[in-house]
């Protein structure tokens, strides 16, 4: 079966080849969107952790009292999506980050980040679709 994408070809992607490729603008523990590298850099306990847009499934945003919450959901096997899961994975048995949730008092900033992540995802999906159509 292909419930976890086994048997399908996984297409390799990479954010940065090394530390030197990380944008020098990353100088504080804040979410940073690198459109050129199709990457969202997320702060995790002081580390700057890149996540390629292909690894990101979607994002969601919620308001709660004075805070705004931004949740990044990642592509993982075994998600109940309702439809047949056909995303291929490099290693379906690995440990996956499934989501990361951030909060901020800065609503405008998180609104902009949310919109930018959605736009990046949309652009990449569109490009993939065009590639597929060209190949057919």
């Amino acid at each position, binding site marked *: *079966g292909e419930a976890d994408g086994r048997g399908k070809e996984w297409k390799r992607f990479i954010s*940065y080849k090394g*530390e030197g490729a990380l944008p020098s603008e990353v*100088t504080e523990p804040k979410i940073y969107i690198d459109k050129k590298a199709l990457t969202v850099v997320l702060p*995790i*306990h002081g*580390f700057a952790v*890149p*996540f390629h847009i292909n690894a990101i499934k979607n994002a969601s945003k919620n308001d709660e009292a004075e805070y705004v919450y931004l949740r990044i959901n990642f592509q993982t096997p075994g998600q109940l999506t309702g439809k047949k899961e056909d995303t291929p994975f490099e290693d379906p048995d690995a*440990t996956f980050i499934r989501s990361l949730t951030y909060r901020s008092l800065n609503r405008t900033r998180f609104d902009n980040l949310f919109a930018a992540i959605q736009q990046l995802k949309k652009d990449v999906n569109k490009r993939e679709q065009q590639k597929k159509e060209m190949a057919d």
Partner: protein
Amino acid sequence: MSTTEYGDIWHLEEHGKLRIGSSGISWKALEGGKTVNVPASELKWAEWTRVARQFQLRIGLKDTWRREAFDGFTRQDQDSVGGLIKQHFDLNMEVKELSWRGWNWGATDFRGQDLVFLIGNKPAFEIPLPSVANSNIAGKTEVSLEFIQPDMPKKSAKNAPDELMELRMYIPGTLPKDNDNEDDA
């Protein structure tokens, strides 16, 4: 005896200055008076890593899991910090390579009190276990970690930090392997 001072150095979420001298390494917060001191005789290892606040000096202590991390060094500081560590403590500061692949899958491991997430055998990030407020197992394959937020004075919305509240992991290895694939066999 001479000491060298670096300003703009962070210890967790506090801003301060760090001194390296023959007696050891010490850091002092700019406000509030918090200090971190590691005497030369306790130092066991030193590492240099690219982190969110540019570069981090991480030092390990003898006979304990304690380690301390100081962020905010610039790329240009590497040679001088490494030189001082060698000169004062006779230790080689190791440059620690991280994974920059951008993948969300890998493996977890423990290093002292840090949970390490490895991608292709290189760490992508570490989570200090004392920062975990709560953890839950949802179903058989999902683990969530909720984090303690540092007790800092609230900043204006404009300068508010991006606070990591929760991380969820999917760990398929805990499920019997050929159970979920039999349906369409």
